[in-house]
């Protein structure tokens, strides 16, 4: 594991009296996509900023691509690509100029970046848009350009902070496709998200982070297997409150969220048979997913 692209050891960051990142240990495997999942304010973005050497830890150590951070930030960041949460493209430049300008920050010559521009545009699905102004791009196109910009230095590790937040389903699929192609090329990805389906689709490994701590880590499938009953029946309807008592006898675990009752069980047949006798209740039967794990472990309360 000596060539792990990112290794965090006992990483701790406090703001005022609050511990935002609390003794996090994390080792990312090369060539994998690692997801950092957590509710808002869990410490995901702070962890990424610490990893990039942008802020200094109160305790612990960051080793990024073999460099101790933040002392060797410049050397390490030369081989990292970053897709930030908030759009930071240059609105005064065209698509191509954005890539050329960003390349210069890495000390890359104009000719070198010019050579890469067609590939980067192709990757981002922006072929033919090189001379378009950034302000004329849709939200999805801007996101893809941001992704292409992060690849301008052909990085070994790409760090993405909520790469698909605010995108419509079509645009999300295009971004996912791009990220899978990167994994295919052997890049290592570290991404934060609060979309469970995104994590489940993309990530080889996931760390669920809450209140500054990593509470579980594993592959999406292992996490579902280890932490949750395999089947879920979601029940809605006016007479739900009356039926609730009955449900507790039929499944292993029940949870209420808003006007929905979640019944978790290994064998959904008895619940479904019983529900078919209740004309006033509607239900949805599905396999358990990462979202169920996430909500079980981090709770259903709103965080902000």
């Amino acid at each position: 594991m000596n060539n792990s692209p990112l290794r965090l050891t006992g990483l701790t960051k406090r703001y005022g009296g609050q511990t935002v990142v609390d003794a996090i240990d994390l080792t990312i495997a090369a060539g994998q996509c690692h997801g950092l999942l957590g509710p808002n304010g869990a410490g995901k973005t702070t962890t990424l900023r610490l990893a990039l050497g942008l802020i200094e830890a109160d305790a612990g150590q960051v080793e990024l691509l073999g460099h101790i951070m933040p002392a060797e930030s410049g050397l390490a960041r030369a081989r990292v690509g970053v897709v930030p949460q908030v759009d930071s493209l240059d609105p005064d430049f065209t698509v191509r100029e954005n890539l050329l300008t960003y390349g210069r920050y890495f000390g890359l010559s104009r000719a070198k970046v010019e050579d890469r521009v067609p590939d980067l545009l192709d990757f981002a699905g922006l072929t033919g848009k090189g001379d378009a102004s950034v302000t004329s791009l849709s939200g999805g196109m801007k996101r893809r350009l941001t992704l292409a910009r992060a690849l301008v230095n052909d990085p070994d590790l790409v760090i993405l902070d909520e790469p698909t937040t605010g995108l419509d389903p079509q645009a999300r699929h295009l971004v996912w496709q791009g990220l899978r192609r990167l994994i295919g090329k052997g890049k290592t990805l570290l991404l934060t998200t609060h979309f469970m389906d995104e994590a489940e689709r993309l990530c080889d490994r996931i760390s669920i982070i809450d209140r500054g701590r990593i509470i579980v880590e594993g592959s999406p499938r292992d996490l579902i297997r280890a932490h949750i009953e395999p089947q879920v029946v979601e029940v809605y309807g006016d007479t739900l409150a009356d039926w609730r008592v009955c449900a507790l006898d039929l499944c292993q675990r029940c949870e209420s969220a808003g006007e929905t009752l979640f019944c978790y069980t290994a064998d959904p047949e008895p619940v479904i048979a019983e529900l078919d006798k209740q004309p006033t209740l509607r239900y949805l039967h599905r396999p358990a997913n990462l979202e169920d794990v996430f909500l079980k472990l981090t709770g259903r309360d709103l965080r902000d």
Partner: protein
Amino acid sequence: MGEEIGVRKTNQRGASPSPRTPHALLSFFPVWQRNFLVWKKLAAPSILGNLADPLLYMLGLGYGLGQFLGKVEGVPYLHFLAAGSLAYSVMNSATFETLYSAFSRMHVQKTWDAILNTPLSLTDVLMGEWLWAASKSLLSGLAILAVIWTLGLYADFALTLWLLPVIVLTGLCFAGLGLMVNSVAPNYDFFMYYFSLAITPMVLLSGVFYPTNALPDWLAGLAAVLPLTHAIELARPLILGQSPTLPLLHVAVLLAYGVAGFTAGLTLTRHRLLH
């Protein structure tokens, strides 16, 4: 341990394009260049906007008010006003660039955040911004200087060439101060305080429109510590064909304001963005 480091070193170099050497002397240059390339796209309106205000002051007041004033300190009022307008123009240009434009890049467009994700450091970003604002104010100064040359508002052409370093120094001074103000600004409205409490008093007290010795002692004392006063103390004699008195003092004051402003701006911006 030595072996371990050796292993790491061999791991570092992949097939990636060769990374830049960090902390190179000119590592701020891509930041300067980015601003220059954006400016180039909008150069004409930008130059016009920067030039109109000081030029109107100089020509409007110089010709208009000059009619009633006759000579000020032994020269026509327009000639007297030329140095003040030059310094005012440079100050304005550096201030606007480091306040509104830099704030857009830092806070609205998140350009600085994007750059900080690359090998460049915050020092590179602010150094690039500082020198860029000084470059832009040099252009503003040159534009006014061209008018001064064209209208023959000077005594000795060779002496006016010394105005070039004065313009650069004045630009650095006010760009440094501007970056400090920018670093603590919550929004664009905040800059009004700086204009009302610093820039406007300087324009009125530092000898742009009249000699500072016309002021009562206590106000003259205040004027003496303002940086714009020192810029004008250097520029005015150079335009009127004299050598400045105490040039090193004025240079030192401008430098001190500029470097102190830049240093404070860097420290406060670091706290703001990287904390």
